[in-house]
Structures are given as structure tokens and as C-alpha cells.
């Protein structure tokens, strides 16, 4: 539309709102662009599971597991396996975001000793 000399100037609030919007846009675009430019689009997730704590509950013990992802890529449908003696327990996590973490719990029937317990990630889906 042509500039009209009679057009009143934009109110101050309009400039403030636009500046705030621009700042937010630059921040969001900056964070995403940095990731995009790092060229990590096709990287594999790097997952590690570790025991966070063991608590007693009726009928057994509950092992809290945290899975961390050291890569920028997200892993989906992450399968976790916990092993204590003969007992093997599985659990799955929907997503472990890139550079993020997710938590799960494994329920064991037997009494656990910390040195006997291992947890690991057995597989995942590439989204």
C-alpha cells in the first residue's frame, strides 16, 4: 500500500511489541540455526543408562534409572534392560531428547545388592 502522508505514526506500544517479537524470533532462530549449522541432522543418539537409586516397595524393590543422551539427535522407543542375578527386567521410554534425559523405573522381585545390578539400553528407534 502506498505511503500516505496523513497516516498517523505507529503508537509506541506497536514498536515495543514488534521489538519484543523480533528479539524472541532471533533467539529461537539462533538456537535452532546453531543446531542446524552444526550438521548434526543425521547423527546417532548416544545413550547411557545409570542407576539413580534403589528403594524398597511391597513385593520387591524399585530401581530408578536415568537415561542420558549425549548426542544432538533424539532417540525414540528406548528399551532398557536391568539385570540382577537371574532376574531380567525390561522397560521402555517414549523419547530421550537430544542432549536431554529421561527417567524410568525397573521393578525387581528379589533383594538387590548394588554390585550385582546392571542397567543398559538395548535398543531404540530412530525418529
Amino acid at each position, binding site marked *: 500500500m502506498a505511503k500516505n502522508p496523513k497516516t498517523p505514526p505507529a503508537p509506541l506500544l506497536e514498536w515495543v511489541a514488534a521489538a519484543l517479537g523480533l528479539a524472541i524470533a532471533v533467539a529461537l532462530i539462533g538456537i535452532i540455526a546453531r*543446531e542446524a549449522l552444526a550438521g548434526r541432522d543425521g547423527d546417532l543418539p548416544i545413550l547411557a543408562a545409570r542407576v539413580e537409586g534403589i528403594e524398597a516397595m511391597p513385593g520387591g524393590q524399585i530401581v530408578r534409572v536415568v537415561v542420558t543422551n549425549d548426542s544432538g539427535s533424539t532417540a525414540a522407543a528406548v528399551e532398557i534392560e536391568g539385570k540382577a542375578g537371574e532376574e531380567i527386567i525390561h522397560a521402555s521410554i517414549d523419547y530421550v531428547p537430544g542432549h536431554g534425559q529421561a527417567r524410568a523405573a525397573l521393578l525387581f522381585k528379589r533383594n538387590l545388592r548394588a554390585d550385582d545390578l546392571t542397567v543398559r539400553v538395548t535398543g531404540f528407534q530412530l525418529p
Partner: protein
Amino acid sequence: LVHSDRQYAVSLARAVAGAAIFSLPLMMTMEMWWLGFTLQPSRLLIFTLANFALLYGLSHVAGFEATQTWLDDILDTFAAYGVAAITGSLILAIFGVIEPHMPVREIAGKIAIQAVPASFGAMIGAKLLGEGEEIEQQERRWRESYGGRLFLALAGAMFLSFTVAPTEEMRLIAYRMTPWHALLLVLISILALHAIVYFVGFPGQKGRSQGGHGMNLLRQTLPAYAVSVLSCLYVLWCLGMLDGASPVVAAMSVAVLGLPAAIGAGIARVVI
């Protein structure tokens, strides 16, 4: 005409309402949360940047306040984006979808993907609240040009297809259908679009349409359907819904999403 801070604040409030009304269904869709961190960053970037062109166009034909100059449209584009990002962050935070312990990239991704539909909603906030009349009068010249009508059809198509596009159901429906179902669906979409625009009036056009069916089908309905299909392709690609799909499955997904898109294009004048 808006020329005081007070009036602009009222317009901004409409924008907030529009952002919330339009994007709440998507804020409550888990696929949208996941897309925030599963989508390739390069694609999220394209989605975000292209959105600014769409917002500028929306501000030109409608917007949350009447605009006179290109500078006004640019200011409103960023204001709508800011309103959308802030509204989106607050709602996602209340839902517990974003939390302080999450990585910055995950939070930014979740907000950025929601900000696209939310800013669309912010731009049409006035219309959604039934207060678009005065703004439309100001922007009428552009709304009634052929290009303006096609743009309105595009915006209308996005209006109705955006909220269902990222769901798993899009893929499921495409899998369930045979190619014959898809062909029939395309035909129904075109007929529905033609019927709506014939009786309600073509996008951007006042009142019912004049002229023969054949001419209108060629000049108005088919171009509007083409624009709807392109918008479906664009949204589905941006959301990663076409990844790994064969051309047939991709075409069927577009046919499925094309139904709401075509109806949206038909009612564009009522909602944008």
C-alpha cells in the same frame, strides 16, 4: 484506525486470544511436543522463517489491526510472533510440557513449532472474535484482487488443516484407504470447495458468485484447490509427515489432508 497505545493494547489482547483459540488443540497434541525435538533443525528453521512471509501476507489481507503501510505490516508480523511465542510458552509451561531442567534446544524447539500456528491464530485474532469488519474495510482492495483471493484460499486451507496435520491419524487414514478411496476423496474435496464458494461467494468476493459453473470451476475452484494441495504438501513436509513415504502414500496423505484444506479454502472469507 489504531493510533494510540490504548487501542493497540486492545488489538494485542485480540492477538493473544486468537493465538490461544487457534493453537490450543495443537498445544494439547503430543505429536507437536515431540516434533519440537525430533524434527530436523534445518526443517524447523525453514518452517519458522517461511512463517514470517505468511504472517506478513495475513497482516496485509486481515491482521489483528488495520494496517496502512508495509512498515505497519512488518511491525505487526513480529508483534504477532512475539505474542504467539509468549502465549505458547506459558501454556506449554502450565501443561508441564516444558520444564526448566530440559535442554535449551528442546525448549526452544517446542516453543518454535507451536509459535507457527499460534502466530497464525494471533494474526486472525480479530476475525476469530468477530471484530474483523472494520479491518476488512481497510484491507478490501487487496482482499478482492485475484492474488488476494488465492492468498485467502491458502490461509483458509491452513486454518482448517493445520490442527490435524501433525497427528498420527493422517498417516493411518492414508494407509487404510485404497487408491480408489483417495480418488473419490479428491473429487469430493473439489466438489465441496466448489459448492461452498458458489453459494457463499468465492474467497474475498462479496456475495454469491455470478457466471457459469464451468468458468467458475476453472477460474476459482481449481486454483483454490491447487493452492490447498500445495499448502498441505508444505505443512506435511515441514512436520516430517512425508519422510520415508512412497509417492503414492504421500499423494494419499495429501488427499486426506486436502479435504479439510479445501473446505477451509472455501470458508476463507468467513474465518480470515
